[in-house]
């Protein structure tokens, strides 16, 4: 009956299609305009010669902007950096967030306060966290990290010149780890105690319980974390803008920043738009994978 009833609910209401349409119209229309108008303009600009510094050079450029971009090593570097940044931060926050969720699920004195402290970075605006890390934590001479290193007799690290992308990954992970923790902690709390107890009766130790009970239970929450984080990580901007400005060289330039350089520093609207189109295509490729993953979750 279950199956028939679901079908009932899904298809039985197609009759109300008009009602559905009218209810969804505002959100769909707005989002569609928000997407299609700039997208169309971006595609249009990307096919133009359009540099604000050279107003006399206009006209249809065809695929010239794209050809130029694709032969520019900066594009490939930026793509690589984008994927590396997203991948590394996702790995750190999901693994770290899961472990922390398990830790903060245990009972210990002051757990509530400790939890609140641990999720605080999520509330800090990216510009501020980037500034704090750049100036007070990772500063080569006066930063806390170099002070700690020196106290142990180690050489201070000049984070942003010797390990630029790593530094960005650390900052961004610090911001998103609390988010993963918050979501996964929520999910872990819904784990049925009976299941854990049954597993213990079956002789499972803490490690086995983690891998065979907790982790499978968190699967859905983890995919939610990955999806939301991916959305934001693909377009990371402020952290780079404030700390390294994409440098040294192209070491920390991701796609978003590359387009920014072209559009707002080189005033080449045509080229920037071409970069925008490429970024959109890349985002869509990622989205397809993501959508598959999330779609599975929507089923349940």
């Amino acid at each position: 009956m279950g199956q028939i009833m679901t079908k009932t609910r899904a298809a039985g209401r197609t009759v109300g299609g008009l009602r559905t349409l009218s209810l969804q119209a505002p959100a769909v229309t707005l989002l569609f305009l928000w997407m299609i108008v700039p997208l169309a303009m971006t595609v249009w600009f990307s096919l133009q010669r359009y540099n604000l510094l050279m107003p006399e050079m206009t006209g249809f450029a065809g695929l010239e902007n794209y050809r130029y971009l694709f032969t520019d090593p900066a594009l490939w570097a930026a793509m690589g950096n984008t994927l590396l940044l997203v991948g590394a931060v996702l790995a750190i926050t999901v693994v770290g967030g899961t472990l922390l969720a398990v830790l903060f699920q245990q009972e210990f004195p002051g757990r509530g306060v400790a939890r609140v402290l641990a999720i605080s970075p999520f509330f800090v605006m990216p510009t501020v966290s980037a500034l704090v890390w750049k100036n007070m934590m990772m500063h080569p001479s006066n930063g806390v990290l170099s002070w700690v290193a020196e106290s142990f007799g180690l050489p201070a690290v000049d984070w942003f010149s010797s390990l630029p992308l790593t530094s960005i990954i650390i900052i961004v992970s610090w911001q998103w780890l609390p988010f993963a923790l918050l979501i996964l902690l929520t999910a872990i709390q819904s784990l049925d105690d009976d299941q854990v107890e049954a597993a213990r009766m079956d002789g499972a130790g803490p490690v086995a319980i983690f891998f065979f009970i907790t982790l499978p239970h968190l699967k859905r929450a983890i995919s939610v974390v990955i999806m939301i984080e991916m959305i934001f990580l693909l377009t990371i901007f402020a952290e780079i803008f404030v700390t390294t400005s994409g440098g040294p060289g192209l070491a920390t330039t991701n796609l978003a920043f590359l387009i920014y350089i072209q559009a707002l520093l080189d005033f080449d609207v045509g080229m920037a738009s071409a970069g925008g189109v490429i970024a959109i295509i890349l985002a869509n490729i990622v989205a397809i994978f993501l959508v598959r993953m999330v779609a599975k979750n929507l089923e349940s």
Partner: protein
Amino acid sequence: MTTAKTKTLAADGQAPAVPIPRTSTLSSARTRRLGLTVLGWAIACLIFFPIFWMVLTGFKTESAAIADPSLIFSPTLESYAEVQLRADYFKFALNSVVVAFGSTLAALLIAIPSAYSMAFLPTKRTKGTLLWMLSTKMLPPVGVLVPIYLLFRDVGLLDTRTGLTIVYTLMNLPIVVWMLYTFFKDLPKDILEAGRMDGASTLQEVVFLLLPLTLPGIASTGLLSVILSWNEAFWSLNLTSSNAAPLTAYIASFSSPEGLFWAKLSAASTMAIAPILVFGWLTQKQMVRGLTFGAVK
């Protein structure tokens, strides 16, 4: 200051943790508990340290700020005074509040009917529509900045709170719709059908039944939207200059020239994040409660 505040906010009645295994003796249980306490607190403090350090630095003099790290110093409000002289904090803060809450309210109003129809009147296209909405979030804003900038300039929305509110509303709409959808979907359909049998119109169903019953979820959705809007930096930096600039722009104005004046930078940063941090602390339990209902259950 932080501990005093959080203690009351974070009092916490969560489900009991994994009980201690029967085989262990009392003393090993105690060791385990001590270990957990130390580990839990160490990690929490480590994660929180940059924020703590920033707040502390704001109360130092500039020379103390760049000296070797030290917890012992004589606190001063000097930096705060200077920062306030340079730019009126309250003007920026007001912009942030108006834009963050305004856009959240607007997004909820637009999203509720949409999520309602997706959850209760699904068609074959529903899932596709939802995923498409989420995928619009993946457009890099920088890719479409130029057209939006030009459009806003032409209709006079540049540097206005309205303009920024519109952008944030649209920016958060997909996530708001998706979260509301997950909360609505969890509501037993029988209850709405009972309402329909009792003579409720669609609007009455929503107002008398759906909204009160999913309030925790709606609240946590709203909270997340407020936080995301408050912290958004890209659009606010590029679409506002003086009139509508929120706190993200305020802090950015301190970043370049004042880079080396750490105490002032810290004071400004502290003021920029304090409202949302306190707001986050106050509402985190609510947020967790809402999330438990829907998305991550």
